[in-house]
């Protein structure tokens, strides 16, 4: 039977016919939101805006704020982690291949591969463990050797997964304690990530201890960088830092006493301390951990960009962020048409160094302040990265794993824009994401009731994609879902699922504002997450570091 084949012209006409058209209700609700936001800009013609707003029905009743749903309070569960890097943890025993080229050694006890909450199996010697697989140690602990030669000693009943990072290896520690003896990283990093901190290592020995209230990191040898939200600290041997000030302080020696190589670790710690004392570094190390590091670009060129005629002019969004992402290579950091607001967000905030990162911080009100020009005037910046600095990749910019770059940006802002920032911890409304028993319960092939999710899900091997009322997660950790939820909800989302490893599922939902405007029918993101996947969003408050621009000056161009 001959099948009718559409001509290219017909196909093109049908394509244009499928272009979405807004409903009158949606246009009205958008009009109100736009006028409301324009009136906040306090730039000009306020009486005209007020007049337009008054003519729009229910303008006051529909502020552009997403309404929370059920005000249910839940208790916060804080994951604690102890990670200790032990250079002397040299145990030669049975070898298991973890992933391509990787090794894992067991000293005593047994390692389990966690398949689901109810199912796990023993990892056999020599068995390959795939990227992102969840590994659990029994009551005796175990020792892993990673692909790069780094050794990870797991405390009893600890759980982690190991995955590729863009520039090295990332250990996601969901519970328990580990001691990591990081191999010398030639070009990349070894990251240890917990729920509230990320530790970056380039060949060193350190300890991270987590308790109920948070995580603790201490150094045995070398230096580590610890990032907690928007802040980071560099620690030297003998120093430690806690993510929560209420945590009870314990000595480094006490923290590593559980290790079967504790004696070796302690000896190494003493040796490192002695070495530091000899070079007179130790005296100021504890004080300097809170001081800004003297990281700076070698040369910086700043020019005012022309948003109208210049090819490099990038649109400025209502948030003050510009649609202009920085470019980086080993030698240069370049961004065209950026606002000072974007630069501040990248320098002081956490998250990605791009438009998405800036928009997230702005939407959550984590970066604010400054005169109007901070969010409107645009600058072209070219900076030379000094030799010996980390060589960042675009992927690292996207993941926000750029501690040294952030410090350089801070120095740039302080020197050229005369920026003075005020950072304070504030209680802000947030949501917690928790997992019901068995969650996430819908595999990607089972919850596909929309063509979009079926199509995207079928072709995406790993990652998180949001498209037309569907969020598709495939072979990705829950952590990658969080930014999308924050984007949807305009609030921080705290991951309390305790789900480690990688998951695949689909959430089909209707965006909140489209439900409110009547343009789209379907479950809200709250209902969809719970009913389709078994993940629950509940309102709460959390303490977050909020940055305010207190002073800034327009820079002289060069």
């Amino acid at each position, binding site marked *: 039977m001959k099948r009718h084949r559409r001509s*290219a*012209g017909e*196909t*093109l*006409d049908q*394509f244009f016919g*499928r*272009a979405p*058209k*807004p409903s009158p209700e949606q*246009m009205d609700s*958008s*009009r109100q*939101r*736009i*006028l409301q*936001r324009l009136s906040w*800009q306090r*730039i*000009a*013609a306020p009486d*005209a*805006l007020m*007049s*337009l707003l008054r003519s729009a029905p229910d303008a006051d009743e529909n502020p552009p704020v997403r309404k929370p749903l059920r005000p249910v309070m839940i208790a916060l569960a804080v994951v604690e982690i102890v990670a200790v890097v032990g250079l002397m943890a040299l145990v030669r025993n049975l070898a298991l291949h973890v992933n391509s080229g990787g090794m894992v050694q067991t000293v005593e006890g047994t390692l389990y591969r966690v398949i689901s909450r109810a199912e796990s199996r023993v990892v056999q010697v020599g068995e390959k463990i795939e990227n992102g697989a969840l590994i659990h140690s029994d009551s005796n602990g175990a020792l892993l050797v990673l692909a790069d030669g780094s050794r990870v000693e797991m405390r009893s009943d600890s759980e982690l997964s190991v995955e590729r990072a863009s520039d090295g290896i990332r250990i996601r520690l969901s519970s328990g304690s580990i001691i990591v003896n990081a191999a010398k990283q030639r070009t990349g990093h070894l990251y240890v990530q917990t729920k509230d901190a990320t530790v970056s290592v380039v060949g060193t020995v350190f300890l991270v201890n987590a308790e109920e209230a948070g995580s603790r990191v201490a150094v045995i040898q070398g230096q580590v960088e610890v990032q907690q939200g928007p802040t980071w600290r560099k620690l030297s041997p003998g120093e430690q830092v806690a993510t929560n000030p209420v945590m009870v302080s314990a000595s480094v020696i006490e923290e590593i006493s559980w290790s079967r190589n504790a004696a070796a670790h302690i000896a190494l710690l003493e040796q490192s301390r002695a070495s530091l004392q000899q070079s007179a570094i130790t005296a100021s190390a504890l004080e300097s951990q809170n001081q800004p590091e003297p990281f700076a670009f070698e040369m910086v060129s700043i020019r*005012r960009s*022309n948003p*109208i*005629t210049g090819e490099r002019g*990038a*649109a*400025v969004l*209502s948030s003050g962020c510009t*649609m202009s*992402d920085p470019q980086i290579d080993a030698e240069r950091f370049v961004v065209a048409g950026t606002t000072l607001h974007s630069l501040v967000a990248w320098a002081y905030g956490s998250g990605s160094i*791009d*438009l*998405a990162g800036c928009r997230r911080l702005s939407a959550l009100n984590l970066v604010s302040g400054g005169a109007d020009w901070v969010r*409107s005037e645009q600058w072209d910046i070219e900076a030379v990265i000094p030799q010996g600095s980390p060589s960042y990749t675009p992927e690292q910019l996207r993941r926000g794993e750029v501690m040294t770059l952030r410090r350089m940006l801070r120095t740039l802002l302080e020197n050229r824009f005369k920026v003075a920032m005020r950072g304070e911890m504030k209680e802000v409304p947030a949501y917690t994401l928790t997992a019901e028993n068995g969650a996430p319960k819908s595999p990607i092939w089972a919850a596909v009731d929309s063509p*979009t999710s*079926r*199509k*995207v899900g*079928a*072709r*995406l*091997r*790993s*990652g*998180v*994609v949001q*498209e037309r009322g569907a969020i598709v997660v*495939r072979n*990705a950790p829950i952590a*990658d879902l969080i930014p*999308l939820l924050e984007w949807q909800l305009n609030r921080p989302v705290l991951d309390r699922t305790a789900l480690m490893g990688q998951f695949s599922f689909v959430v089909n939902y209707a*965006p909140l*504002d489209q439900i409110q*405007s009547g343009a789209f029918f379907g479950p809200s993101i709250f209902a969809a997450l719970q009913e389709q996947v078994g993940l629950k969003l509940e309102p709460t408050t959390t303490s977050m570091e909020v940055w305010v621009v207190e002073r800034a000056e327009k820079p002289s*161009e060069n």
Partner: protein
Amino acid sequence: MHDARRGFPVEEHMSTAAVVEVPKKPSSQEFGQIFQEHYDLIYRTAYSITHTPEDAEDVVQTIFLRLLRREFPPDLSKNPRGYLYRAAVNLSLKTIRARQRHVLTGDEEQLEGSTDSGNYDRDEELDQRLWKAIAELNESAAQILILRYIHNYSLADIAKLLGTTRSTVAVNLFRSRARLKKLIHAGDQS
């Protein structure tokens, strides 16, 4: 009444020959009138390209913020609708280009492979490719395409709105359609 003497904001690095007039803020009445008259076209344009109300609102808001900040060309008063429409198309296309970089957090190249799970899927995949291709057209070509096929403007109306000739619009449309058809053919063959 619009003031025909409006100009670019004075920029330090612009020559005085290029900047001879100081811009004037639109009055309350002017701003309100411009917003009321052109909001529909701008919003519909932005929504048809970005497909989301959030992005469409950002586009519209940015355009009117520029107006409030006096970031408009000197001839705005001659053809405000044309200027605002062009700005809407350009900003919306920038938005979808940026979205391709930001929304996808997985390996982008992994979306390149195709699946054949129904006509609807093929349509969506084709839509993505075509919107990507439109975003890569030059700005005036995209502006003309969208006026013609999204807003159903006649060639004469397009020419009038964009301040060009009917024949220029026709040639431009022909070339853009040819380019998109070629893309469709290539997709069919693969």
